[in-house]
């Protein structure tokens, strides 16, 4: 029965940074945002079809907002007869999929229309989207019937570069997800993202940098469609080695050995007698043995 199945909720966070995708359209016309959305739709349809009780949510991560593409606030599953334009399934597809795809298309069009050109906001609001995803998962968990269990995971499809300013929020999101046992998978299209590598490492998800963008659908279906129970039975790409080195606060260099202020915990690559963050004074005593040894050597030589 449906109540015996464990529900599986997949939240897909798609990076739709218009600047990056616009540049991408000029660089590589065969793989544009349209193709990406097609692949995402294929994956989401596949997820919904795998088990009747599977749930889905798609969030578009824009540089000005994070917007839910699916499900719609005003739409309830089963409410097919509302719109005249959608006259059921045109190609014999499962109605839920048809409606879902139509919804996603409409929403992404509206979202892109709303895009305004703002010079300062060029970075994807990924941390915010992830936070929204976590909130959505939390809400759905609360709305479950008694006795139902749900496993959720977040798939991030990332296009643009990491934003260093979002670091703190990102880390908070990652640890919150870890606490809630929510996996964060990452599918990276362009440059490697240290933050997402950490996210997948900490939460137990998969990280994949896609070598061929046009085969995105295949990668999504092969690697990210199975849920965590099934993944243990499959041979999937091995985990990436994550660089957990900290960066010093003064130069932002990645260091392996450094000095940490015991008051404010800020990391420095060189010793300085005053911590520049909290202005505490420190002393390092010279090793006395060196002085004593020097004295001893003198009489013998």
């Amino acid at each position, binding site marked *: 029965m449906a109540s015996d199945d464990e529900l599986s909720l997949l939240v897909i966070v798609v990076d739709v940074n218009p600047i990056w995708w616009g540049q991408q359209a*000029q660089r590589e016309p065969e793989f544009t945002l349209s193709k990406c959305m097609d692949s995402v739709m294929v994956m989401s349809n596949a997820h919904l079809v795998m088990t009747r009780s599977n749930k889905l949510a798609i969030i578009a991560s824009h540089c000005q907002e994070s917007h839910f593409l699916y499900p719609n606030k005003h739409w309830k599953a089963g409410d097919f007869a509302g719109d005249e334009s959608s006259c059921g399934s045109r190609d014999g597809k499962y109605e839920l999929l048809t409606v879902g795809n139509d919804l996603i298309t409409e929403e992404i069009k509206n979202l892109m229309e709303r895009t305004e*050109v703002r010079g300062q906001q060029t970075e994807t609001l990924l941390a915010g989207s992830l936070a929204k995803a976590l909130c959505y998962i939390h809400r759905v968990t609360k709305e479950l019937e008694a006795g139902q269990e749900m496993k959720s995971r977040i798939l991030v499809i990332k296009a643009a570069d990491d934003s260093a300013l979002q670091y703190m929020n990102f880390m908070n999101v990652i640890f919150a997800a870890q606490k809630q046992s929510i996996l964060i998978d990452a599918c990276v299209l362009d440059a490697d993202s240290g*933050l997402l590598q950490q996210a997948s490492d900490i939460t137990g998800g998969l990280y994949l940098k896609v070598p061929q963008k046009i085969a995105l659908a295949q990668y999504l279906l092969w690697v990210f469609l199975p849920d965590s129970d099934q993944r243990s039975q499959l041979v999937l790409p091995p985990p*990436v080695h994550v660089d957990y080195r900290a*960066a010093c606060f003064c130069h932002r260099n990645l260091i392996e050995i450094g000095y940490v202020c015991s008051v404010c915990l800020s990391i420095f690559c060189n010793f300085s007698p005053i911590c520049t963050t909290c202005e505490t004074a420190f002393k390092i005593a010279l090793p006395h043995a060196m002085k004593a040894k020097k004295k001893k050597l003198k009489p013998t030589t």
Partner: protein
Amino acid sequence: MATSSEEVLLVVKRVRQKKQDGALYLMAERVAWAPEGKDRFSVSHLYADIRCQKISPDGKSKIQLQLVLHTGETTNFHFTSESSAVKDRDAAKDLLQQLLPKFKRKANKELEEKNRMLQEDPLLFQLYKDLVVSQVISAEEFWANRVSMNSVDHSLINSKQEVGISAAFLADVRPQTDGCNGLRYNLTSDIIESIFRTYPAVKQKYGENVPHNLTEKEFWTRFFQSHYFHRDRISTGSQDLFAECGKLDEQGLKSMVGQGVRNSMVDLTSLEDKSLDEGYGISSGPSTSSHNKTLKENSNAAIIKRFNHHSAMVLATGLRKQDAQNEQNGETSSTDGNSKDSDFFQPSVKKVKLQEAIEYADLEQENGRKPVALNLKKSDRYSHGPTPVQCQQYATSQDIINSVNCIRHEIADYTPRLTQVLSSSTASTAIAALSPGGVLMQGGTQQAINQMVPNDAQCELKHLYVAAGELLRHFWSCFPVNTPFLEEKVVKMRSNLERFQVTKLCPFQEKMQRQYLSTNLTGHLEEMLQTAYNKFHVWQTRRMLRKT
């Protein structure tokens, strides 16, 4: 024969061992047997080696004595004298019984300790098997480091605690009916000790009467017969030995009650047992005076008094010991419990106790010290992650406008074409990359090594590592070589290492090769051994140079 210094404690003639006639000699430190007419002992066992002795049951025709050694061996002696076989055997047995315990403890402890250690730690046991049993290293070297660790603990264990007295010790002496109207009391030395400690009056009586007037058996018989022991102590002025004890007990109890409890927090006198009737609880009427009490109440009161006295005496024994140790002036009175209390409740202590009872720390006002505030000047440093400041791809404003327009146009005309998402060729390249051996799967094969090597090989490798580690530890601990003992040890360890390599490592390697395992499992071990050999070689050449 026996060495001249050995003192012969007992000689028993006509003892057969292994169907040969001879004589049994019990000496100061060992037991030995010599055949008839011969000078030399053919069987000799140190008392330290003997674990226990056994005798044949009384009914048997053969009168034998068996010695069981620690190693499990047994030696049988058959006493064949027609007249005095049983007496001889018993004499031998008694003497052994006295002598064995003296020697038992010394050897036993060490061996037991070692056995215990081997049993508790399977890894240690395996190491022992690998190294000592296969003669790579001698047992003394093996135990040299380990036994020293444990002898320290022993000195702590040896300080024993005094065993207390169970309050029910008299009740535990359960009599058994003797068949014909008699009762049989089994008294062990523990019970006797408890009685003496609790009732010093009885001990005094014992000291006075035994062994002059009464035997021990008679004393105890009288004790149990006397009314002193029984439930209802109706003090008939009989010529009972223990009538005096009864009186002393009463006096003791009276003085204890008279002293009262010097704890100002406790008021015992406000508690009274005023019952309406049996089983009817407390009445608030005036307390009944003694002459109104019924006979039943009187006997109840007597039993209760005895219970209280008994409990007080039992408690007092524990405190008496403590006080005896604490105070130099020995004699403590029967008011043991109370003296401690009175010391305890000096006025200052009483005040503190009252304070504690009144105040609650939680309900107090908060007046904690203010902690030093953290003063951060540049807190935005924390919000920046460990990512180095990268020069971002600078996008000119024109670029931005172009990109945004481009994407808007694209999406405005967007219709999903889900049947044309993927071509088969791209799909198959992607699959190839994701299959084992593909571009994306490179890191995975390294993890499989523990699946490629069978479990028993892994176990054996682990044992080899543990054994090699132990030998190398001995070897490396010899450096720097300062004493001649260390020199010898170094040379010995080197030969041990070689022996280990030959007897254990090489067969393992060959076995691996036979199983077609290409992985080099023993490379690291060989490297470690080679380093040790090199060090030894260097040391040896230096020593040669120094000598010449």
